[in-house]
């Protein structure tokens, strides 16, 4: 009986270990946040529970293509991390951060748009990858004193509209995921 119990417990442990390893591999959003924290020595803030609930209920909208308003993110797919009142100083080393970020999130993501304004410490990265019939979009936006990391699922039709103006895509997705129009 003891042996059976031991085998059962070992099996459960292996399952748990396997599960955590899988989620660690798949958590590219977390990897992006961690890379920012390590490179800039900053700390992200969790969104208060109430704000999170508000975000979920909000009919967030973003402007897509000449006045047509649509919700971008698929319901329940939004992951957000904020960096507020912090110091982002690249010390002229934005290319190194760019490399570190791309390495951290892994090869499954394609870099769609990247914009940089080093003097203002502004950087935007939009990465994209296929997720079944939808797309995962990861947006990293950094300024001198604040930053946002957003991951959302987007349906192909919305992505097709966003693709026509990829330079604005990062802002549209970040606004959609972080603002509510209450």
């Amino acid at each position, binding site marked *: 009986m003891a042996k059976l119990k031991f085998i059962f417990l070992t099996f459960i442990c292996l399952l748990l270990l396997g599960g955590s390893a899988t989620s660690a591999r798949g958590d590219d959003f977390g990897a992006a946040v961690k890379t920012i924290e390590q490179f800039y020595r900053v700390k992200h803030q969790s969104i208060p529970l109430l704000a999170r609930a508000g975000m979920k209920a909000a009919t967030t909208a973003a402007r897509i293509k000449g006045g047509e308003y649509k919700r971008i993110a698929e319901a329940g797919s939004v992951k957000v991390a904020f960096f507020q009142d912090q110091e982002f100083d690249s010390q*002229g*080393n*934005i*290319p190194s951060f*760019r490399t570190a970020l791309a390495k951290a999130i892994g090869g499954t993501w*394609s*870099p*769609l*748009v*990247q*914009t*940089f*304004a*080093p*003097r203002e410490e502004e950087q935007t990265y939009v990465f*994209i990858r*296929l997720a079944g019939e939808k797309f995962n979009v990861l947006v990293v936006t950094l300024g001198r004193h604040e930053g946002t990391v957003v991951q959302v699922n987007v349906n*192909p*039709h919305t*992505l*097709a509209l966003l*693709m*026509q*103006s*990829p*330079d604005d895509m990062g802002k549209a997705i970040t606004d959609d995921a972080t603002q509510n129009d209450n």
Partner: protein
Amino acid sequence: MKPFFQNTLKLTFPAALLLLAMSAASAQEPRLQISNLDYLAGKASQTVDVNVDEHLLQMTAKFLGNDPDDKEIKDLVSGLKGIYVKVFEFEHENEYSAADVDSIRTQLRQPGWAKILTFTSKKEGSVEVYLMTANDRISGLALLALDPKELTIVNIVGPVDLSKLSKLEGNFGVPDLHIEAPAKTKPKN
């Protein structure tokens, strides 16, 4: 010893042929290698880097609407294999080097590429447009816009319809380059 050389030759010859074929194929590549310019992002006051691959383009074409504007863009991008854009804006003149530009021009001197347009003005710098053709069909386009304070590289991979090229301006990250559609020639009487 002899069989060793014979075996080596047997293996080396096809490998050499394969390498030769591969290098010839890469020489005909309509996609430019422009990542060597990424270091300029550290010097530029503003950088935009857009990479739209074939899969994304085709997906976009599939889901675009049916209004005339969308349809025209859909027709334009449906055969394309990629759109790659890099724009570097600098605060001061001459912050990018001739070697940076040469790294692109060298690729554009490879077989298949032909310069179709050069426009130079003191005020706006110069614009060079190159086309790659294979079997009498356009398989790629490259545009180099060189301003003392700005460097723009646009690389469109795939069959480009030159008459509709201006429709891409402002779409898929292609900046406004004031590309004029070729004028229609009047039929001779």
